Every structure is written in structure tokens, then in C-alpha cells.
């Protein structure tokens, strides 16, 4: 395995320890049960937590901090955190102002958050994120997956909470943001869970998977790797077909690296996507290019579009100070 690892079973703990040590000014790691919270909490603020399987760094722990999450609950690699972890994080950061859980649409995550919230006795709400249109048609199983769009939902809801909005208002922002966001990804290769036998996705050299999920779930189409412009054209087409943005919708264009693809290539994708949107008369009002929702070392990328509804642009521009995303302060 081409990885820097000691005992694979310790990978998440060791990595989080390094992460927390490096960013001790911003975050604090609690090891048992495992969660990451802000170094300084704001009293009376709506708290926001998220969590899920590890292996998607900086999501979620790297997005803890001012203007975004109050706590993150990292499970094992690609595996949900336990109820105990979620409950401990909820109790650590969720006060009478209420707690908002942002949950990616995976059954493990949903089950564990659901059970934890059944045991949590302060005000709380949950919003499910399901932005991935990648498997459209082929997925008779679990609905849309939650992928890179999670960052957008966390940012917008996080900004609202930082401004002092209440639980219901923050939940509403999160719901609207989730509903206004679509993502589709493409992989040029697989990724390998340290404890598993094989790569999560088996692509022959020179093949790509259009619509890939962030755990290597199959997408909509496998094909020989095409020129970047053709790939991006297909992704942009799919996004537009899915939720028909109009020229009046200011768009957020977010190109996310999946872990093994360097910035040179994600900027090539961004350039093509921005040109193609402009050519269709659509307006890119905000941009983000970064590997924020990765799949271990997978070579690949995803494109996320969000229709920036009323108020979203300001919330987006609000300061954010986290290890993984930082601006305006």
C-alpha cells in the first residue's frame, strides 16, 4: 500500500493527534470518545456539528472553527462514528441555544446520528445533505449521496450561527443550501482503505468513472479517460440538466480535488467549467478550488454548483477561520 501508516487501525487516531497538535490554536481533540471541537466556544450560539467516516480530510474535523462547525465527529475510515461519540460531541458544544446536526446521506451516519439525537435532551435539529447526482438512474438503493456540497452547507449554516441566528433559522439555511446544491465527481483511479483487501474502485489504467462517490461507489458511466474539456462538459451538462440554474441565479462554482489530483489539474477543470458556464449565460458569482472532501488518495475531482439564493452570498463571504478553510479574518 502506497501509504504512510503504522498500524492501520491507529491511522485515524494518529492523524487526528497530529492535526490537533498542529492546529492547537483553533481546535481541541477529545480522544475518548473521539471528537474534535473548537478551542473556544461562543456561549449562547447555535451549535453546529457534523461527522461521518474518516478519510475525507479536511472534512469534517478540518472545518471546525469560527464561522463553521463547533465540533466534528470522525468515525473510522469510511465508517460512521458511534452514538457515544456523537452524543459526547453534542453534549460538549450543544447548549440551550440548540444544536444543528449536518448529516451526509449514508445509512450509517443517519442511524448513528438519529440514535444519538434520540438520547440528547437539548433542542436540536438535523439536516441531511444529498448533493451527489453522480449515480443518477443507477442508484436504486440509498438516494443521493452526500459529498462535496457538504462544505457549502456547513459554511452557510456556520456563518448564520456565527451571526447569532437561532436553531430553526440555521436549520432552514442548511436545508435551503442543501436543496440548492448539486455535485458530480469523476475518478481516474481508486482508493484503498488501509484495512481492506482491494482498492474501492477497480479502474483499468486509462479508464475513468463518471459520477464516482467519495468512497469509490460506482457512478453513471465508465469510459476511457477523455480530454479535460470533454469531461468537464459532461459534468456541467449533468449538473445543469439536474437543477436548471437560470442566468438570474448567481452560482457558486466549487471544484474539489479527491486527494490524489494536484492543483494544476483542478484549476484546469475550474477554468473549463467557468468558461462553459459563462458560455451558457450563467453567472459564476463565487469560486472555490481546493481538495476539501477527499477520498483518501483517489485521483479525481468533483464539481459542485450552488444556486446562491437571497443572503447566501453574504453568508459565504463572512469570515471563516478553520484549519482547512480560511478567509476574511
Amino acid at each position, binding site marked *: 500500500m502506497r501509504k504512510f501508516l503504522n498500524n492501520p*487501525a491507529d491511522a485515524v487516531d494518529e492523524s487526528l493527534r497530529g492535526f490537533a497538535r498542529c492546529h492547537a490554536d483553533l481546535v481541541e481533540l477529545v480522544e475518548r470518545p473521539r471528537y474534535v471541537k473548537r478551542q473556544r466556544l461562543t456561549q449562547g450560539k447555535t451549535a453546529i456539528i457534523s461527522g461521518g467516516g474518516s478519510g475525507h480530510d479536511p472534512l469534517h474535523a478540518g472545518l471546525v472553527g469560527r464561522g463553521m462547525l463547533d465540533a466534528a465527529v470522525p*468515525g*473510522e*475510515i*469510511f*465508517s*460512521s*462514528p*458511534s*452514538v*457515544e*461519540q456523537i*452524543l459526547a460531541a453534542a453534549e460538549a458544544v450543544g447548549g440551550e441555544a440548540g444544536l444543528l446536526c449536518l448529516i451526509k446521506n449514508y*445509512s*450509517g451516519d*443517519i*442511524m*448513528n446520528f*438519529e*440514535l444519538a439525537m434520540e438520547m440528547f435532551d437539548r433542542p436540536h435539529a438535523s439536516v441531511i445533505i444529498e448533493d451527489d447526482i453522480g449515480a443518477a438512474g443507477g442508484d*436504486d*438503493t*440509498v438516494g443521493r449521496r452526500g459529498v462535496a456540497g457538504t462544505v457549502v452547507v456547513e459554511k452557510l449554516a456556520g456563518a448564520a450561527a456565527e451571526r447569532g441566528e437561532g436553531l430553526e433559522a440555521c436549520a432552514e439555511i442548511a436545508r435551503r443550501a442543501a436543496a440548492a446544491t448539486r455535485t458530480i465527481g469523476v475518478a481516474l483511479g481508486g482508493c484503498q*482503505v488501509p*484495512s*481492506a*483487501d*482491494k482498492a*474501492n474502485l*477497480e479502474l483499468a489504467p486509462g479508464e475513468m468513472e463518471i459520477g464516482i*462517490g467519495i*468512497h*469509490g*461507489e*460506482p457512478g453513471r458511466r465508465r469510459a476511457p479517460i477523455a480530454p479535460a474539456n470533454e469531461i468537464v462538459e459532461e459534468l456541467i451538462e449533468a449538473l445543469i440538466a439536474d437543477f436548471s440554474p437560470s442566468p438570474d441565479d448567481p452560482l457558486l462554482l466549487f471544484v474539489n480535488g479527491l486527494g490524489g489530483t494536484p492543483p494544476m489539474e483542478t484549476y484546469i477543470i475550474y477554468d473549463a467549467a467557468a468558461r462553459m458556464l459563462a458560455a451558457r449565460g450563467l453567472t459564476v458569482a463565487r469560486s472555490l478550488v481546493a481538495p476539501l472532501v477527499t477520498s483518501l488518495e483517489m485521483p479525481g475531482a468533483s464539481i459542485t454548483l450552488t444556486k446562491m439564493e437571497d443572503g447566501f452570498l453574504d453568508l459565504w463571504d463572512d469570515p471563516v477561520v478553520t484549519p482547512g478553510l480560511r478567509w476574511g479574518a
Partner: protein
Amino acid sequence: MGRMSLAQSHNPAENTGAALELLDVLCTLLLGAEDELNGLDRAIGDGDHGGNLARASRSLSELRPELAELSMGEAVTRAGRAVVMSVGGASGPLYGTLLMEMGKALPDEPGPGDWAAAFAAGVDGVARRGRSAEGDKTMLDVLAPASRALSEEASADLHEALAAMRAAAEDGFETSRGLRAKRGRAAYVGERSVGHDDPGARSALLCVGAVADFLGENKG
């Protein structure tokens, strides 16, 4: 003196005592199956199903003294809560829900019919919690037919009922192998899951078999 069957005594303490023996049996079994279950999960999942159930077993063993103080229903509920709390992933909430829902359904002095009904309630809970159904290539492919068989035969002879439950579990397991996973991590590998044993179905089969053995022995 043979061990008491869970369904035979009218003395709650003895019931719990036998239940704790069954708990020990199941924990030992699952700890011993850790590598096998991890191996199955490595092929189509993330290789931790055995580890997850070993963690569940260890936390249940720690809980043993506390469970001994409780009534049957309370003890099973409490055990389920412990699994839910500590395991994470998919199998934690599912096996935990199975136990919690069973515990809630159990009367203070359960007879065979009560156990069958409780099992059915637990399996319902799993399907609800997992938003899943038999045929999704999960533990439900074993649990659901086993529970149905037990309910159908619950009024008959206990030996027959247990034999029917075990046979249904085995059939369900065999059928499941040929399916494509639609829930859980194995769904990520899509078609590649066909032909592989689902780790949760395997652990469910092991548990159902052990329960049948235990109760059959005590009965005979």
C-alpha cells in the same frame, strides 16, 4: 443439572442467569469469529465487521455485573444500548437496535411466543433503522427469515421451532450470497459484491445458530 432454557423458569433471576450464560456464549463466539468476519468484510467492505463485533462483545462483557441486576427486558435493552453506544459504523446501531427493540417487547416472564414476538420486533427495528429490507444483502437476509420461521413454529415443539429458525437462517444466508448489496458499505462495490458472503449476514447466522444450540441443549 442441565442449564435452564430461557423460556422455562418462572424465576426471573434464573432467567437472567441463563440469559447471561447465552450472552457469554455469544460473546465468546463473536470474539472467536473476529478474523473470519474481518476477512469477509475486507472483500466487500472495510474489513472491520469482526472488530466491531469484538468491541461490542467486550463492552457487553464489562456490562455483565450490571445486567445481572436487571429484569430480562431491561437487561436486553441495556445490552442493546451498550452496543449502539460503542460500536459505530452500520452494525452498531443495527445490532443495538435489534436488542433494544427486543428488550422493549419482552414481558417480565417471557414464554416462547414472547421471545418469537420480541425477535420479530427487533428485526422490524433493524429494517426501520437501516431503511432496508430482506434482499438488500445484509444481516436482514438472515434475521428476517429466521424470525419468521420462529414465529410460525412458536406454538409447536421448541426443538422444531429452533430447527426451523436455524434452517431458515441458513437458507437466507445462501440466497444472500448471490445478491448485489444495496445497503451498507458493500453497496459501494456494486456488482462486485455478488458471490461474496455478506459479513453481517454471516455474523447473524453465527448468532442464530448459537442461540438454537444453546436453547436446544438446555431444553433436551
